[in-house]
């Protein structure tokens, strides 16, 4: 059996830079050694830290550069905690790209709304970069980004750059008194976005938040087929053989997702 055909084998990569995004979140940039990952916005990879384990992460870089990958990782479990100690030059293994991407060609000529809460913005960053780079293909593009505390906000420099091309709304639910921007949850600020029945929405956040945002968007007249959610599960194999990412309706997040239309799945059951 040749190694190219074995989908379980990771391929080598090096850390080229580490950027602190917030207290517990870092963006790692990887150089792929002698291979490329021609990915599309919304796909994910399995990151293997030698001696620690493997975990899935959505790619948070532009699909125009398949030789480098960026992953934004928040300290949560075993692999994510170990990844905080990576330094430039460290070797890791990467498997991917895996999963189905956002169907960006279907977004063309329409208004696009991207709603992200917390670290969910990492799963949507590749999509936002695609929208910014190909700004002419879309009508109004809005990023609605919610977090809890000011120090939780990530991608500060990038958001400043993006705001020149797309509309950016940032809201904090537990803002400190010196916060000058918007306060409250993202669902409180959906009124500030002009929505029409053909608007396409991409949503990522914690399960309960995704349910409430998708519900709210449907109430505001968006079609369920035009609402895309990016789901999270702990995929072990990434190719549909371990069934650890099985969700309601018998869909596999690794093979059929991680990007789903709200019409494909029961949005109320995202948290189950």
């Amino acid at each position: 059996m040749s190694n190219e055909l074995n989908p379980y084998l990771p391929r080598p990569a090096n850390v080229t830079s580490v950027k602190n995004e917030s207290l517990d979140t870092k963006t790692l940039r990887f150089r792929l050694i002698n291979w490329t990952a021609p990915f599309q916005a919304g796909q994910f990879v399995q990151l293997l830290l030698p001696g620690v384990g493997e975990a899935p992460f959505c790619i948070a870089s532009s699909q125009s550069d398949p030789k480098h990958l960026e992953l934004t990782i928040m300290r949560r479990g075993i692999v994510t905690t170990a990844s905080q100690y990576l330094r430039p030059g460290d070797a890791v293994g990467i498997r991917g790209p895996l999963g189905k991407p956002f169907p960006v060609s279907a977004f063309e000529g329409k208004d696009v709304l991207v709603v992200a809460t917390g670290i969910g913005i990492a799963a949507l960053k590749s999509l936002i970069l695609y929208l910014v780079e190909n700004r002419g293909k879309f009508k109004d593009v809005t990023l609605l980004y919610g977090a809890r505390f000011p120090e939780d906000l990530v991608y500060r420099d990038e958001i400043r750059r993006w705001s020149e091309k797309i509309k950016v709304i940032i809201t904090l639910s537990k803002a400190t008194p010196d916060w000058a921007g918007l306060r409250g949850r993202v669902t409180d600020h959906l009124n500030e976005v002009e929505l029409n029945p053909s608007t396409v929405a991409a949503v990522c956040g914690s399960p309960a938040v995704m349910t409430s945002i998708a519900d709210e968007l449907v109430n505001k007249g968006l079609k369920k087929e035009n609402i895309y959610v990016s789901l999270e599960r702990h995929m072990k194999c990434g190719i549909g053989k371990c069934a650890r990412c099985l969700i309601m309706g018998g869909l596999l997040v690794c093979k059929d997702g991680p990007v789903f239309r709200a019409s494909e799945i029961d949005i109320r059951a995202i948290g189950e």
Partner: protein
Amino acid sequence: MPKLTTQDILKLIDGLRAEGFEVISPLRINGVVKLAKLPPGEAPLLDYIRINNSPKDFLLPCRESLYKYRSTATLTSYGLKIRFPTAEGPCPVTIMPECTLPKSKIAFFGIHPCMVNSIRYLDKVMLSDPADPYYKGRRDGMFIAVMECEEGDDYCLCGMLDSYKVPAGYADLMMRKRDGGFLVRAASEGGKGVLALINKTQEKDGVPELVPKMKEKYTFDSTDEAEIDRRDAKEYVELCTLCAACTVTCPTCYCGDIEDEFSLMDPANVERTRLRMSCQRKCYSMIAGGTTFLKTKDARFKWRLKHKFPFSERAYQLKGCIGCGNCIAMCPARIDFRKFLGRREA
């Protein structure tokens, strides 16, 4: 249709061994009937109703090595220290793929038609694109000799799920008990070849289909997702001890876990292993940070049934339950999903 004696069966098995097969057949071990490697000279147990394990144990072992690689972990006086290799450091990570493919092909001798259906289900899951190379390596060239079943025990339900029928292409030999001997017919070219080894030839005659007698009959009204969710499982899950015997003994439960394993004596040699995982455990649906999607026993009991019926029918157009009844027979609380999903016939 040639009739064989036990002596002929032994000759047949020797013939299979000579062709390079590792013969796995039901055996009585410590009082229970299990599928196991057949020691040379020993006759397989062909008069049985239930086996405690299933072909899954050989096709998807409960622990298998996917590959090995070296990390830079070292054991220090204050514990295990994992340092990632750096550009300046001496040890770049090398991945040494090492596959655990068996040297000989597998021959299942004397398994019941329900177990053959479980192999068909595992094939659908594991060989769908992209194929699992480890499963495929074991599966290729497999020989199956089916022992047809005449009567089920209290927990069998293949009569309701039609899984007493052997799917086309999944049997090489079909065996049936008759007057102290065995009626054998070849169902494939490979089977004909093996019969020829003991100088028995295939004669053409029609064989009536053998439908096993069920001791208890149930009817399933509907097994779709909404129906399973709607039903009240309280009286069933109350007794559940979360031992996960239902998923361990199930011939089609394929959910797995992949972990890095290393010995503390030599922590730099890491083995990436695949283990079996049960949906009855809380960690099955836990993601980083501790969020668990299947929080209650009730949700997990229903999840297993949903995976067997609506999810499998949708993804593979095949029922995940093959009606062996192992999950009922091996359950220490005798939780009977037949009563939950259907009603008993008089």
